[in-house]
Structure formats: structure tokens, C-alpha cells
């Protein structure tokens, strides 16, 4: 297999009294979709923020295309070519949709913002994600949860990243938009990008991910090839026990959409 585009080893991160990550390893190859799985509070978002430079790690090494790099602030990650969609969406509520899409990345002509160009590009992007937004000029504060999510996703596509990290991108999305985002992830993979996908939706994970890395209580708790692994195995790794609420519920409830895969 090719060299990993991104490789983390021994990443630890502590918040006050909470050791959120302990000696976590992870690697992503070009053209690979890695699902990062784990229970609530397992440390997934924390790991994403370490990579994105939002909350740099206390210790540990990050290698980018083989060479060690330091990621101390978000622009470091962006300059390497890492695009991130955060779980807490990181939009500016006071700005409108177009402005939010282009924050820190505005198009200008002769020093003046090229609103026309930005609005046109925004319209294209959102159309391609099949989302309906009454007007591109309302502050994002007034958008629905899913609309906000789509804005965040659209934003990451504006640059020309090599690795895209999506932290629960479809959590708030409708069925149509979810399908679009899954298509999108596949397109990104096919273009040779590395993708890190965090999701609690096993169906989505199984649909698009090549590999699944599991975190539990801030530590690595397994690394699976998705195709070879059963749903129950993954859930057991996430919850840390074969006897877990999911299994118990599956035992109780006869038929269920996503659990028989």
C-alpha cells in the first residue's frame, strides 16, 4: 500500500483533570476512507481537533506524507492541505451564508470583495449538495440544524485539500442530503484524497469506509477492515463488551432496520 498521507503516533491530550486522549495512533492513506468510531466522549472530536490544530496535542508525533510536522494552529493544518468539518459547526452566526462559506478565504478583485463571484459559487455548491435554502443572504443564525451542517460541509470543499476530516457530518442531515454527502465522500476518495469520517451511523460507515479505527475512553481499541468485520464485532469494540445495550436491544426487538447487517 502507498505511504500514509497522515500518520499520528502516541498522541495524548489532557483537559484539566480529564485525560481525553492517551497514546493514540492513527494513519490515513491517500484514497482511503477511515472511519473513526467510538462511544460518546471517546475522544474522537478531540483527535480531530488535534489534527486540525484547534487544540494541539500535549505529546505525540504527527507525520505528513512521511515527514514529521508540527500543527500548532488551524492555519498550519490548512496549509498542509487538511480540511475539517467540525462537530460544533464553527460558523459565525452574525454573517450570512455566503460570508460563512468564504470566511478566511474571501474572493476579491482589486482588494474589494467579489460578492458576485462568491454568491455564484455558493449557489453552485449548495445546489450540488441538493439543499434548499430560502436566501443566501440571511444570517446563518436563522438556519435549521441541517442547513447549518450543509454550509459547514460545503465550506470544506472550497479549498483543494488532500485530507478531509468530517466529524459526524450527516448527523443533522435529511435522507437526501445524507445520500449526497456519502456520494461526496466517495467522490473525494476516488480523487485520491484521504478521508477521516466520524459517524455513529454504522450503516453509513459500512457504506463508505474502508477501514474503521475505534477509540474507547481515549485509547485505541481496534482497527478493522470494514468489509471483513461484523456489525457486532465493531459495536463490541466501541462499547467495550459483547454484552451492551445494542446487543440487548437487538435481542429484545425482533426486527430492526440497521442492526441485522
Amino acid at each position, binding site marked *: 500500500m502507498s505511504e500514509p498521507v497522515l500518520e499520528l503516533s502516541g498522541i495524548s491530550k489532557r483537559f484539566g483533570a480529564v485525560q481525553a486522549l492517551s497514546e493514540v495512533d492513527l494513519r490515513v492513506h491517500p484514497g482511503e476512507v477511515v472511519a473513526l468510531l467510538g462511544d460518546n466522549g471517546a475522544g474522537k472530536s478531540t483527535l480531530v481537533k488535534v489534527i486540525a490544530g484547534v487544540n494541539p496535542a500535549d505529546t505525540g508525533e504527527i507525520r505528513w506524507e512521511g515527514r514529521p510536522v508540527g500543527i500548532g494552529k488551524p*492555519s498550519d493544518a490548512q496549509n498542509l492541505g487538511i480540511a475539517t468539518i467540525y462537530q460544533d459547526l464553527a460558523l*459565525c452566526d452574525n454573517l450570512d451564508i455566503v460570508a460563512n462559506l468564504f470566511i478566511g478565504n474571501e474572493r476579491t478583485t482589486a482588494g474589494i470583495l467579489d460578492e458576485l463571484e462568491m454568491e*455564484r459559487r455558493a449557489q453552485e455548491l449548495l445546489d450540488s449538495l441538493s439543499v434548499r435554502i430560502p436566501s443566501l443572504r440571511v444570517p446563518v443564525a436563522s438556519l435549521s440544524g441541517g442547513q447549518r451542517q450543509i454550509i459547514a460541509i460545503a465550506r470544506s470543499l472550497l479549498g483543494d485539500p488532500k485530507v478531509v476530516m468530517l466529524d459526524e457530518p450527516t448527523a443533522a442531515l435529511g435522507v437526501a442530503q445524507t445520500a449526497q454527502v456519502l456520494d461526496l465522500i466517495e467522490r473525494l476518495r476516488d480523487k485520491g484524497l484521504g478521508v477521516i469520517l466520524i459517524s455513529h451511523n454504522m450503516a453509513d460507515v459500512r457504506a463508505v469506509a474502508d477501514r474503521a479505527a475505534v477509540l474507547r475512553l481515549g485509547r485505541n481499541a481496534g482497527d478493522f477492515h470494514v468489509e471483513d468485520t461484523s456489525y457486532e464485532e465493531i459495536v463490541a469494540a466501541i462499547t467495550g463488551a459483547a454484552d451492551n445495550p445494542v446487543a440487548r436491544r437487538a435481542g429484545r426487538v425482533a426486527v430492526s432496520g440497521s442492526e441485522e447487517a
Partner: protein
Amino acid sequence: MAQQTPVANTAEGTRDPRLVVDTASPSGLLSGAVRRIRGGELGSLPVILGLIVIGVVFQSLNANFLTPQNLSNLAVQMVAVGLMSSGVIMVLLLGEIDLSVGSVAGVSGVVLAVCAVRYGLPEIVAIIAAVLTGLVIGTLHGTVFAKVGVPAFVVTLAGLIGWQGAQIYLLGSNGTINIGYDGAIAYLTQTYFVPVVGWAIGIAAVGLYFGSTFLGERRRIAAGLPAKSTAEVVVRTVLLAIPVFGAIAVFNQYKGVPLAFLIFVGFVVAFDLMLRKTRYGRMVFAVGGSAEAARRAGINVDLIRISVFALASALSAVGGILMVSRGFAVSQSSGGGDELMMAIAAAVIGGTSLFGGRGNAYSALLGGLVLYAIASGLFLLQMDSSVRFMITAAVLLIAVVLDSLSRRSRKTHARG
């Protein structure tokens, strides 16, 4: 038993069917405006209404209130604080506060006078030195705030006290320095343009507005984006032309358009363009809306913060220069009066939020007009200062109540 309503098969374009659109006809424009007013999206309208109320009330109490002379005085009176207020607005947009504007104006004024009078430097050099003083002070404030993390309130409170000390110290024992009645500094507030120049400036401004708006909307239409109709552009131009030409006509009946006021308006317009049309302005709004989101988007938040504080203090310095120019003198108390309160109040009355991310450059102009119009009217009526204070408070409240009531109807918190 699926009780299903038929799936509508309308050809839905890019327009969302839920969006209520105003037609391009004049009546459509009007009904759109009425709807926006009802919905609380009033913009500067309430403040303008407040100004009209103030004008009518005072004029009915004293016939001198709306004389060209008084209005012309008013326009120059508000300039110094108005400029400080412009700086305050920048800082408020960041969601921070600057308590040092008055002291910075004072110390810069002293630097100006000391350079020009005590050391006899050319007045233009003195002016540059004063502005630089502001710039350096602001950079200092911004750095301590952004890099060390001391709350802006504390940094600028220290500035408020410390720069006042510096001002008294620099003035030395003599207390007041007269700058003389001639010379570049004094002329800043003593110069009035002959009528034709005033009209030329007004026509150029309105024409520029119309031209750029019209072409902008044309380009939008060409790009297939929703755009304002030509009718709307014309109406907006007329709505701009009325106050502009009105003011020029009034000024021309006295001494002409005052240079000082033009400087102030020029700064306001420039700041408005900077805030709305440049990357820098966009970044200021972004940091004010959510510093964390801005940081994640790769914006150098510290740099924005430092630059905004630097700009704010530089503007205070310009305000200080005009303050000195108007009074022909600088003293130990210059800038130490109610300048700070007035500057912040003007910003807030004009519609800039204290909580960051919401506001506009015109607040300084509108809010400053409200405050100085009240003061001017009350001075004309010559009341005991105790009564004057109470009435000022009452008028201040009344002037913003309309705005507040309209804002209440527009709930901004509801989301998701």
C-alpha cells in the same frame, strides 16, 4: 392505511417557494418596506425617526434650533466625539470595549500642541506625530489584550487612567497650550467650502452611489442572481439624496459645508466601505461573531484584534486633533470629560451592539447627531443643569425606545 397527500409536481426553480418576494413595482417596494418595518427589520429608521422627533420638539420650543447656524455648529460640535465613536464601533464589532478613547484623544492632542507650539515643528508634522501616538498606543492596548490575554476592559481602563497621567505630565506645569487661530490645525475646523464646492461634492457622492449600485445590480442580473430592481435603486438613491442635498443646502445658507464635518463623514463612509467591502472588514465581523470560528477558519485573530485597537486609537487621535482645532487649545482636562461616554453611547444609539459582530459605521454619525442635537437643544432652552441632566436622560431613552421595540419583535435567538 397510508393517508397520503399527493406529491406536488411543481417546477420549483432555484427560488424557494416559501420566500415572500417583493415585486419590482413601486407598490411592491412599499409593501415590502411595510412588511420589513412590521417584522422589526428597521435598520437605521428608528434612529432617524428619533432625530426627526428631536428636531420637531426642540424647534417648537425654540425657533433657533433648526437655523442653518445652529445646524452648522452642531455638525462641527459632534465631529471630535464622532471620530472617537467610529473607533469605538470597530472595537465593539469585535465584541470588546475601549475605555481609553477620551484619554487617547487628550494625550494625542497634547502631543500635537507640544510639537506644534512648544517645539515649533510644522503643523503637518505635529498632526502626523499625534496620529502616530494614537496608533502606537492602540497597538500597545491590542497587544496586551490579544497576546497576554488581559481583558480589554482592564487594558483600556489602565489606558484611560495612564494616558491621562501622561497627558498631564506632558503638558507640564502650564496647564493649557493655545495653538493660535491660524495655521493648518485651526483651519481644520475653521474652513467652510463655498456653495458650489459643497454642491459638487454632494452631486459626486450621490452620483457615485447611484452608478455603483446600478452597475452592481446589472452585474448580478447578468450573473443570474437575485438583484434589486432599477426602481428600487432609484428610490434608494433618492432617499440618500434628500439628506445629502438637504444638509448641503442648509450649510450653504450659513458658511458652507464645514471641512471638519466632511472629514468626519469621509471617515464614516471609508469605514463603512472597509467593513462591508474588504476582506479585512469581513474578518473583523467574523472575529466579532465567533472568535473561535474565525480562528478555525485560519484567520489570524490576534492580528485582527491588535489592528482594530490600533485603528480605534488612531481614530481617537484624529478626534483629539479636531478637538484641539475647535477649541484652539489643549488643556489637562481635554478628552477627560464625557467624551468616552458620549462616544460609546453614540455607537450604541446608532445601532451597534455591545456584544460584537453587529453594527455599522453609520452608528457614529447617527448616534452622535442624536446626542449632540439633544445637548444643543437643551442649551438653547437654558435650563438649570439639574433639569438639563434629567431631560437629557429622558430624551436619550425616548430616542432609543422605538428602536428597542422594533428589535423586540424580531427574535434573533430562535434557531434550529
